[in-house]
């Protein structure tokens, strides 16, 4: 740990980091645009300039150097003294903000970034209220740089974070700077749009309203949004994300800093892959079959109906004839509640995990790098919690089958009563499962979308989208990460954790933490969850 003096106070900071980062971590609001902790340093915005004490070239006496230094480019050294509160530094910030705005269209009322824009924030805090510029503004065009992204060059501050992102993180090199001086613009090469699996991040790194997400464009004012700390369920990488919701509408998903998993990034699959939560095909009500017809169940009736059906089956066929198919889309808490409950009803029952969707191969970024060098990767396992379910199955022991063996057992009549949990956004029921399920006496189906299994089900329960649930996922590296609810379950539905909690005989409100406490003895791995550190308040 180095000790440095910032504005006359001593702070302890990490060795080797730029002074800017150390100051941000110490709680200072040092304005900056071009600096991003995960990208190379270009020191071009000149907004973070500071004063530094250096030995006098002749006398060797320490004193304030007659020039300013970019704090993003100056590494921390033990004993150094810097200041941001001097007149010269603050004057530079004020002039810099004026320079940034002279060619800016000031179109905040129609800009998507308004409310989370660092031109707004810094102008308010460090700039002037008015501009002295009366001449014509140099106006850049709007550009359609890719299928998902728009570029408003007139709002750009030329921090080049987006260019460096495509060079250093995605490794796809689509963006570049063209022209010179004030005519500088970000652009794509002719015929090569910004279209890679990580391109959405350029919108996140843009500190102003230059790069915008077409999907989110003009949908919401950002100050109306409330973020929930979540984990992306798109694959087993388990990226930390923020789910931005307003009035039970979901508007966008953004990456959240997680040094162990995704750094500051996420892929487009996860970013735009949540639309299924609003599918018309979703099961939103609990129902049971009476005669041949579906009858909607009140949630207060559900525990009784489900438990009655399952107990009856145990009495008719024996405890070993019951099985439960857990889904890798479930959280650990939900899977544990379900599995332990089935085992309570029928101690000899069979447990299995549903299919793990595999698509292609793991993808590493920057493209073309080896998995060891990867700064980001997308897993081929398109489910969030394979490791977690395996952990629970291991912990519970007893009769545990593979998915194929489970389907075979059902087909062979070895299992007569089953609870099958789905929850996959994509169609997942293969023909053999549907045919085998026809032989079941009792089928409790917990699923997200209507599938062929619905025809065989006796009780159907809605499997809510992850944004409506809470719990924890275990990613492919075994990291246990909690996610929070971002919106309520759709009308008529109840979140899985809650009804499983009640079916298992517990009273009160479900919460992930509460269930993890219950699980701690049998599955100690989930007792401690990993929550990544928050980035300093003024870092962006």
């Amino acid at each position, binding site marked *: 740990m180095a000790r440095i003096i910032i504005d006359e106070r001593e702070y302890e900071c990490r060795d080797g980091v730029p002074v800017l980062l150390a100051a941000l971590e110490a709680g200072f609001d040092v304005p900056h645009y071009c600096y991003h902790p995960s990208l190379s340093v270009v020191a071009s915005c000149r907004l973070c300039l500071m004063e530094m004490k250096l030995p006098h070239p002749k006398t060797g006496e320490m004193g304030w150097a007659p020039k300013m230094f*970019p704090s993003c480019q100056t590494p921390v050294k033990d004993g150094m003294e810097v200041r941001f509160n001097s007149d010269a530094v603050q004057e530079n910030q004020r002039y810099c903000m004026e320079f940034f705005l002279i*060619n800016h269209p000031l179109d905040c009322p129609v800009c998507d970034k308004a409310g989370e824009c660092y031109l707004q924030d810094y102008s308010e805090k460090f700039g002037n209220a008015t501009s002295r510029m009366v001449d014509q503004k140099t106006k850049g065009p709007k550009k359609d740089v890719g299928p998902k992204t728009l570029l408003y060059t007139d709002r750009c501050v030329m921090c080049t974070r987006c260019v460096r992102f495509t060079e250093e993180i995605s490794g796809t090199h689509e963006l570049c700077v063209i022209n010179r001086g004030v*005519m500088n613009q970000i652009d794509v090469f002719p015929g090569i749009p910004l279209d890679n699996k990580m391109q959405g991040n350029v919108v996140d790194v843009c500190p102003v309203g230059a790069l915008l997400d077409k999907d989110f464009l003009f949908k919401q004012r950002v100050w109306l949004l409330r973020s929930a700390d979540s984990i992306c369920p798109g694959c087993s990488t388990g990226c930390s994300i923020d789910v931005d919701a307003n009035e039970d509408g979901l508007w966008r998903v953004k990456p959240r800093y997680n040094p162990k998993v995704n750094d500051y990034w996420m892929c487009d699959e996860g970013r735009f892959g949540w639309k299924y939560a609003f599918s018309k095909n979703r099961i939103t009500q609990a129902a049971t079959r009476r005669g041949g017809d579906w009858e909607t169940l009140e949630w207060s009736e559900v525990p009784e109906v489900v438990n009655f059906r399952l107990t009856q089956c145990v009495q008719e066929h024996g405890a070993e004839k019951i099985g439960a198919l857990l889904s890798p889309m479930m959280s650990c808490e939900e899977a544990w509640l379900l599995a332990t409950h089935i085992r309570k009803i029928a101690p000899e029952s069979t447990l299995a995990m549903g299919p793990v969707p595999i698509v292609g191969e793991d993808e590493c970024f920057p493209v073309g790098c080896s998995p060891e060098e990867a700064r980001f990767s997308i897993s081929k396992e398109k489910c969030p919690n394979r490791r977690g379910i395996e952990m629970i199955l291991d912990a519970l022991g007893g009769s545990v089958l593979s998915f194929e063996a489970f389907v075979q057992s059902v087909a062979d009549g070895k299992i007569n009563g089953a609870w099958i949990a789905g929850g996959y956004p994509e169609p997942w029921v293969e023909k053999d499962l549907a045919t085998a399920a026809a032989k079941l006496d009792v089928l409790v189906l917990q699923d997200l979308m209507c599938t062929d299994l619905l025809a065989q089900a006796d009780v159907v329960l809605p499997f809510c989208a992850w944004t409506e649930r809470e719990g924890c996922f275990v990613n492919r590296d075994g990291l246990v990460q909690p996610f929070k609810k971002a919106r309520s379950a759709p009308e008529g539905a109840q979140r899985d954790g809650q009804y499983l909690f009640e079916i298992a005989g517990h009273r009160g409100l479900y919460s992930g933490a509460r269930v993890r406490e219950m699980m701690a003895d049998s599955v100690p791995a989930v007792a401690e969850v990993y929550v990544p550190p928050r980035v300093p308040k003024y870092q962006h």
Partner: protein
Amino acid sequence: MSEYEPVLLANVGVENSRSIDVYTSRGGYTAAAKALKMTAEEVVEEVQRANLRGRGGAGFPAGVKWGFLPKGRTVTYLCVNADESEPPTFSNRVLMEEDPHQLLEGTLIAAYATQTTTAYIYMRVEFHEQFHILQKALDEAYAAGWFGKNIQGSGYSLNCYIHRGAGAYVCGEETGLIESLEGKRGEPRIKPPFPAVEGLFRKPTVVNNVETLCNVPHIINRGAEWFESIGPKHSTGPKLFCISGPVKKPGCYEGAMDISVRDLIFDERFGGGLLNGKELKAVLPGGVSMGILKADEIDCKLDFDDPRKYGLLGLGTAAAVVIDTDTDMRDVLANVCRFFGTESCGQCTHCREGTSWAQKISLRLQLGAGRDEDLDTLIDIANHMGMMSGMSICGLADGAAYPIRQIVEKFRDEFEGHLRSQVPGKVSRVLEVLN
């Protein structure tokens, strides 16, 4: 002002001075032969003793620069900065046109001193004719065994290539040059690391100006003491001066750095005075980016130190533009601002926005539509663009700030006179048309 015998321009005017035969017959390549028999350290030491200061503008001692190279390096590059693009400057052009072998010999000696493996001559693209002249000379030098493998049996090998730029002033800045040479946008790099440690292709690199290297063979031939004996202390050795504008004999001249701007304009050996009927109003003495001198300040000496006493940024390229009383300072200002506005690379905020803002204001002033506050705004922009070093990555912003501020400050009366006599309502009309 002392008597002076041309050294750098000694071959100018000699018939066929570009050919290797003529060059050799006049004592060419003897310095290279001598240097190759010395050790590299001895050559560096000799140049250090001569205190050869860089002729590109900043005046940094070349030998010291060579000394910054790390020990134990395996690859070293030498870049010859032939991107001469400071507005009224054309001394490198004369050197390359008239005596290309002098540059090549200097390059070879500097390369040997720094144990360079490959040398690149980075030439501005507008030097079409000069490129072909220099390329022909390089081919001759290769054929004569002064470049290539095992030069003159010394065991030292050097390849030299001429690379042509793409037309950017900022590529004359050494790290901008390096970026451009690597095939990237010509944008200066942040320092540290300095090129001597991590330069071209991330390897130790030395960047020297054409005129600097042309001095090297003479230092080797005649010794550091000879070099030190020319001109005033700290500003020794031969120097080329350019003069342009309404003078009788515009051109490139050689002298010691003991002459003043007055000598350069009025002495018969240099500019020879103003054209008949013209009267001196101002001089931009060191290329445009050093600042401006009023007619009563022309006793400023053209050495590395004296210009600072007149508030100038430095000696610069020692290329003077003479401005006469018939010239409107608004035109001078607009021209200077337009140059920097279009030549800023656009990386750093102050320089990108400041130069373009100044360009817009100066254009409006030129069109006779100035506002009273414009002059203060221009000075304010200049003050916060580059008067304090460290505001931007390279010196371009400083080079823009100095002349802008000084033109406005030193000729404020003239600007204010124009503002007073301006047609009422002109500002809003011009703004309407421009906006």
